[in-house]
Structure formats: C-alpha cells, structure tokens
C-alpha cells in the first residue's frame, strides 16, 4: 500500500547514483562492476524495453533493405507507376487504380503488399524508401542537436558570466518559439532557392535542409539541462583538484566534466531521436521538410490525408509505421533511463 515506506537509492546526481545502487533492491550484485555494466544488467532484465528496441532495429533493417525489396519482391522501383495495369488478387483481376482514381488497397501479396497510391506506385516500396529518409534525417539531426547542445550547455555552465548570459538568452529565444513554427520558418527560408554559406551550397529540396532545421530546433532542450548539471559539477572537489593541478579549461571540460554528463546524454539520445523523427514528419506533412517526389513518412501521410475518406490505407500505412518506430524508441529509451537511474523506478513497500 501507499502507506508503506519507500525504498530508494541514496541521493546523489544522475552519475553518482548508478555506482551506489544498493544490492538489496536488485538481488546479489557481484562487487567490482562498473556503473554502466550494472545499468546493462538491469536493462537486460527489462523484456518489454528490449522487445521494443528490437522492433526499432527490425524497422531500420527493413528500410535499409528497401532497394532489394523493390527489385526482388515487389518487382518495381521507387518512382515507377503502374497506373494503367491490372493485377491478379485471389484469382480476380483488379485495376491498380480504378477508373474514378481510387487506388487499390493492401493485396497482402508480393506486389502491392500494402496497396498502391493514386499514381499507381507501390506503397510498401515507398514506405521503406521513405523510412530511409525519415530515419537518416532523424539520426543526423539528433547527432547535431546532442553535439551542439552538450557543447553550448557545457560552455555556458562552465564559464558562466557574460558567455552564459548570451547563450542562455539565445536558448530562451529558440525555446519561446513553438518547435513546429520555428521549423516551418527555417524551412521557408532555406527551401526557396537553396542557400550558399561560403563553400557549402545547398540545393532547395536537399536532405541537408531538414536535417539542419530539426537539428537546430531541439538544441535548447539539451543545452539547458546540461548547463544546469555543469553548474553543479563546477563546484565539486574533483574539478577544484583538477584546477589546482593546473589543467587547462579544455581538459577540465572534456576530461573531468564530460564523463559525468554521459548518463544524461545517453538518456537524451532516444528522447531527441524520437522527437526529431516526429518533427521531421510534421514538417514534411506541412510541406516544409522533405520535398516530393522524395518520399518520407510525413509526406506520405500528407498525401494520404488528402485521399480521406476514399483510401484510408494511404494514411494508415505510413502512420502506423511512424508510430511503431517512435514507440519503439520511446519504450526502449524509457528502459534505458530506468536502468541508468534506478531511483526513477522506485518500488513502494516490497521489502
């Protein structure tokens, strides 16, 4: 019952908690294991998290195999349209796109497994190719967000003063825009005629544009908490000791402080990845992300919603795929957080 006392690990910040996890809660833990080994042990026991993590991996592998699927299973290509063709489904001959323009639904056969769109293109093929774009943008944007977020947050927290004031106001400004609105604004700016910054030349419609947009939008969401953590770490004895030894600021930041940020960064990775994939889909849905005919799950849903109510499968197929991908990342990420920070998974009265 809730009246029972609460068992909790000793207080401390994220990094300190892991190594001092009491053996009583998790059974007998052999001495001498590092914090990440302990976290890995806890994660390994969380079957739900592992299953959803595996789901995500399966989706990634399927998307990587898109060209093989298109060639050997669906016998088509990404752009090929079969608008005037007929196919055999269950012994009957059916038009891929009917005379009134309604595309065929899922056939559950090798060709048009998940149906066709109104240009007679194979939805399953587009789904996998689109997934490559969505996942690539999500992964690279996450990389940018985490690198810049950690760097700027650490600089602001470590040096404080004027630099902190400037960076923190900058975070506040980005923070004040709704992410989707900021994304469309950047998308509108960059997608008109492309942009040239020094030697870098971006074509309108290039994948780099949505990567940069999504990468920028979430920087404060990482930088702010990192800054807070660094503010606390800066006061600690080991940083004083390093300073006394005459280590440079760079070495203190990367050698002493960064390792203590690791578990927070690990917790952030899946969170940012899930949100980056969702934001890219939202931007593509609004026409500010990936430009057609290049597919992504967001553009496919956008095309699908226009065909409601005639052909709901055009919305369902990419929508469910997007949901499963993000859910896989989120549930796995939740498990990772529990494993790294056992305090978050407190049991009530089960001694």
């Amino acid at each position, binding site marked *: 019952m*809730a*009246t029972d*006392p*609460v068992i*909790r690990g000793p207080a401390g910040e994220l990094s300190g908690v892991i190594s001092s996890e009491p053996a009583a809660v998790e059974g007998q833990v052999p001495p001498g294991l590092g914090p990440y080994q302990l976290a890995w042990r806890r994660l390994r026991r969380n079957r*739900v998290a592992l299953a959803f993590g595996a789901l995500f991996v399966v989706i990634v592998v399927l998307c990587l195999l898109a060209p093989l699927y298109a060639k050997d299973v669906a016998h088509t290509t990404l752009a090929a349209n079969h608008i005037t063709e007929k196919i055999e489904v269950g012994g009957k001959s059916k038009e891929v796109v009917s005379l009134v323009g309604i595309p065929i639904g899922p056939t559950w056969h090798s060709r048009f497994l998940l149906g066709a769109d109104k240009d007679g293109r194979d939805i399953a093929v587009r789904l996998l190719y689109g997934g490559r774009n969505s996942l690539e943008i999500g992964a690279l944007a996450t990389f940018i967000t985490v690198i810049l977020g950690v760097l700027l947050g650490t600089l602001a927290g470590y040096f404080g003063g004027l630099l902190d004031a400037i960076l923190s*106001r900058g975070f*506040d*400004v980005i*923070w*004040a*825009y*709704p*992410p*989707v*609105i900021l994304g*469309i*604004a950047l998308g*509108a*700016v960059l997608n*008109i*005629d492309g*942009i*040239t910054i020094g030697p870098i030349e971006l074509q309108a419609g290039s994948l780099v544009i949505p990567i940069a947009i999504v990468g920028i939008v979430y920087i404060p969401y990482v930088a702010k908490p990192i800054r807070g953590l660094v503010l606390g770490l800066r006061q600690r004895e080991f940083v004083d000791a390093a300073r006394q030894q005459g280590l440079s600021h760079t070495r203190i930041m990367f050698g002493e402080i960064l390792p203590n940020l690791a578990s927070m960064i690990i917790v952030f990775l899946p969170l940012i990845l*899930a949100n980056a994939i*969702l934001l890219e*889909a*939202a931007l593509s*849905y*609004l*026409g500010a992300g990936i430009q057609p005919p290049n597919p992504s799950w967001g553009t496919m*849903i956008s095309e*699908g*919603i226009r065909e*409601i*109510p005639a052909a*709901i499968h055009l*919305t*369902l197929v990419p*929508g469910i795929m*997007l*949901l499963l991908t*993000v*859910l896989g*990342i*989120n*549930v796995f990420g*939740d498990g990772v957080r529990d494993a790294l920070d056992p*305090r*978050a*998974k*407190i*049991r*009530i009265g*089960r001694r």
Partner: protein
Amino acid sequence: MSRFILRRLISAAGVLLAISVLTFLIFQAIPNGDPALRLGGRLATPSELANIRHEYGFDQPIYVQYVDTMEKIFNGTVVSYTQGINIDEQIRRVLPATLSLALGAGFIWLFLGILFGVLTAITAGRWLDRVLTILALVGISFPVFFLAALVLYYLGFKAGIIPLSGYVPLTEDPWGWFTHLIAPWLVLSVLFIGLYSRVLRSSILDTLGEDYVRTARAKGLSERRVLIVHVLRNSLIPIISLWGLDFAQVIGGGAILTESVFNLHGVGQFAAESIGRLDIPSVLVIVLLTAFAVVLLGAIVDILYAVLDPRIRLSS
C-alpha cells in the same frame, strides 16, 4: 516580493525585445527574400522596384525599418506586405479559434495529466501503473496529425459522431462550438497527458522520499492528507511550469498540426501561410504574440512559485 516581480518583468521585456529583433533580422537576411521583388511581381522593372522600395521604406536603414514596423504593430496599423490586409484584423479573425482550442485542451490535459500522474505514482510497480505507463508512452509517440486523421476518418466519416471540420464561433452557436471542438481538444491533449503523467509520477515518487513527508507521516496524518497537502503541492511545481509554456505555445500557433487537419483556421494556419509568403510583418506579429504569451505565462509561473516557495524568492 515586489522587487522580485519587477525584476522578473524587466527580464521578460528584454527577452521579448531580443526575439523581435532576431526575427526581423532573420527574415531580412533571407537570400532572395527582398519583399519588393514579391510585391512587384516577376515582371517589375527596376524603376518600379525602386518605387516600391521607397513607398514601403525598404530603402531606409534596417534599424529605421525595424522601429517603423514595431511602431505600426503597436498602433494596430501594420499591413501585410503581400496581401495588403491589416494584420490586426487577421489576428482577430484567427485568434478566437486558437484560444478556444487552447483553453479547452489545456484544461483537459492538465486535469487528466494530473489524474493519471497521481494514479501511476500511488500504484507504482503494479499493473495499473504498467498499463497507464504503456498508454502514456503510446500517447507521447503518436504523431498528432496521424491521430487527428484517424479520429476524423473513423469518428467523422465512418461513425458520423463528430462534425467533419471547421470552427463555429461560441457567440453564434455554443453547442456547435462545443461539438466542433471536442475532437480537436482530445487529439491535442493526448501528447500532453502522456507527458505530464510521466513527469508527475517521477516527481511524486521523488517527493515521497523527502524527510518532511516522513515527518508528516510520523505525526500521524492520514495518507490522503500527506499525499494532497504535503506531496502533491510540491510535486505539481514542474507540471505548472510545463503547462505555462505549452499553453502559451498553443496560443502562438503551436497547435498548427491539429488546426490544419481539423481545418480550424487558427493562428497556426495563419502562421504557416504567412511564413510561406515570407510576409515579414505578419510573421513578426505572430512571433511576438507567441513570445508574449510564453514570456508572460513564464513570468506568472515564476511569481506563483515565489509566492508558494520562499526559497526561490530569496535565492534569486
């Protein structure tokens, strides 16, 4: 206390100023973003372009243009570059739909978020907690435009329970207002309910381990009293600050996805259209509206904290 409020308001005004300047500069720096080119059309001659630049003041130094635009915004006389329409009227046309959406959804997600957060915290580790946790994760993972499309298709087209789209003003038809908004309210709330219940759950579990909670129990207070008066009051702090930011962002067009699928013609859709046309004054007005809402609610939340918790007041 009044010094704290004053300092908080001054810093809020500073953020607003920075946001307006930055937005103005970004849209000035756009390559090929010269508004004269869009006003004049593709066939405009150089002399026509020069006329337009002079008439709209684009030939003035950039800080003069900024001050001019801001002055017009506060006079309510600012006019769109590309449409020639008064933006004040535009905003007044789109704001009621967005405000209705934000108020209804904000109430629903705050109420259900707290309810589910408390439920999962007091049943932590048991089946109700597990089920609700999975549900919360599904809610967080659901792309809002996909959810909106599903609701529209299955409840609108198939079942015919909800009207298909559009916004009906409250003053014209209160019942129509309600039926047109109930689906958007729920769809918009799903993400936040999932998020808030997760945040509140871990916040309550953290607070339950505090010494003062043990003291309260040792004094023999009932568990209900401990939970409501001692635990919940403190655990709600992060929820309140999240709610302030999220609510403000919805007012500033953050619910654009929900608005566009349900075709509510709100601030978000207006923002997307203005951005697409690179209409600097419209974008500035919307951004300022959002920033104003975010900063104002942020300041209110901070002041509320300071009232509730003297430690915050003293330390800052």
